[in-house]
């Protein structure tokens, strides 16, 4: 069955698009994949298949089926999670589901996964598998993994309010929070990541392992069609894909005027160049001033504010003095209260924009940097003495 396809890069590109898809789920396709996955695992078909708008809603249902809901209700985020759990309970009841049975993630996903991997390694050797992985999943994994980790963190936070736990919280509150967090984490361990399993599926696809609907073919079909899913003996919970996904050139979650990742039910993540920020933070920056930036106590948020405001404006408004100037650029230092100084090197693009101007950009460098050349050299990991490009464009 295994045969290495000629074009792993094209296969990887398809799975890359799948991992970033924001279209409504292909529900029929996903359910066909689910049935194939159960059949391939030798399991009876689930009696109920339930769709949810987001992994948050689906995770609430998973907590009810897996028995973690009581810990969540008893946790500090219990009140906030209550409506989600209630809604999920109504959905399960309406579908006639009293219990879901045990998780069958191991049987429908992990076992065929291991079998496929063994088969590919037997055919092409460990080196061949490493090579195939480098061309497919290795490229996709860093960003896909970062995204699913962010979603997981947000799910734990929304269901437990763990991020709001104060440093001086008492022992009982800590204990209840810890129990709620571990209940949600356990429920998330039962999830199959659908479109976000793209890196591994790309490698198996390029190895010809996804050609039929046996083995990993079923889970792959779900991944092509939907978001995260939870397989249980009698029930399958499926989530829609996100409706919004905005990233910057480096692939990090990034959006100034709305959520960087959002689902139809409003579950959303806000981020600026990859940095998580509170939901209203960026829209609240419209009338930002240099003074407000100085007053912000949270160093990470202040950094976002300076970038949002623009280093150029901030340097001008705060009367910053250039530290050093040479042919590579200008080095600036901004003193911040109770934080290390922001040292940035101002660099001018060597190639003109279409209108004939040259774009200027600012790069933050370590606070101990003394010269503009040392700053630019640091951004490329070379020493000041060595940094002498003979040509720049």
């Amino acid at each position, binding site marked *: 069955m295994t045969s290495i396809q000629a074009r792993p890069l094209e296969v990887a590109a398809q799975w890359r698009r799948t991992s970033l898809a924001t279209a409504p789920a292909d529900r029929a396709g996903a359910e066909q994949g689910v049935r194939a996955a159960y059949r391939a695992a030798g399991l009876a078909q689930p009696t109920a298949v339930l769709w949810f708008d987001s992994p948050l809603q689906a995770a609430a249902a998973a907590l009810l089926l897996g028995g973690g809901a009581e810990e969540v209700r008893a946790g500090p985020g219990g009140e906030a999670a209550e409506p989600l759990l209630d809604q999920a309970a109504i959905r399960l009841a309406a579908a006639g589901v009293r219990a879901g049975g045990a998780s069958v993630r191991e049987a429908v996903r992990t076992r065929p996964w291991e079998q496929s991997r063994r088969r590919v390694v037997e055919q092409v050797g460990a080196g061949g598998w490493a090579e195939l992985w480098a061309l497919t999943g290795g490229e996709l994994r860093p960003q896909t993994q970062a995204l699913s980790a962010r979603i997981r963190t947000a799910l734990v936070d929304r269901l437990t309010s763990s991020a709001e736990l104060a440093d001086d919280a008492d022992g009982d509150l800590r204990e209840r929070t810890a129990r709620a967090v571990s209940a949600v984490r356990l429920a998330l361990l039962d999830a199959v990541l659908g479109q976000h399993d793209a890196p591994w599926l790309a490698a198996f696809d390029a190895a010809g392992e996804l050609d039929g609907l046996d083995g990993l073919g079923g889970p792959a079909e779900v991944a092509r069609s939907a978001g995260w899913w939870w397989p249980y003996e009698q029930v399958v919970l499926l989530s829609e894909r996100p409706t919004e996904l905005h990233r910057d050139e480096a692939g990090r979650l990034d959006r100034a005027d709305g959520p960087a990742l959002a689902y139809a039910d409003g579950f959303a993540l806000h981020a600026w160049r990859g940095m998580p920020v509170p939901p209203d933070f960026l829209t609240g920056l419209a009338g930002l001033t240099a003074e407000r930036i100085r007053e912000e106590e949270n160093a990470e948020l202040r950094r976002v504010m300076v970038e949002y405001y623009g280093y150029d404006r901030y340097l001008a408004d705060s009367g910053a003095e250039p530290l050093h100037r040479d042919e590579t650029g200008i080095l600036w230092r901004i003193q911040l209260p109770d934080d290390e100084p922001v040292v940035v090197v101002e660099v001018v693009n060597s190639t003109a924009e279409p209108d004939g101007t040259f774009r200027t950009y600012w790069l933050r460098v370590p606070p101990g940097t003394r010269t503009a050349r040392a700053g630019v050299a640091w951004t490329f990991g070379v020493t000041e003495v060595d940094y002498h*490009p003979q040509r720049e464009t």
Partner: protein
Amino acid sequence: MYRQGDVLIVPVEEAAVPASAAALPPQQRDVRGRLVLALGEVTGHAHAVVGPGELRRETGPFGAAWLHLPEGGRVVHEEHAVIPLPRGWYRVVRQREYVPGAVRYVAD
């Protein structure tokens, strides 16, 4: 050394290329037959080499990339002027930015 936007291309002696890197599989070319050194996620604009040669990329976010151009080549990008490269071996470095407690990569 040569700089095109956020990519630095540093000539190296062949002997300086670690054996572990030389043993890596060569990166595949894109649909236009180019060796992509760095790709912009949103615009799809790429720093790419046109011409014969091989690129070997160490894994991990801080992994180096090694470029071999047996006959020389050209580095192109949608927003930057072309840079001709003589034949030889090169280390390809992506520009990074300082973040207290971490480092992040720049994308132009």
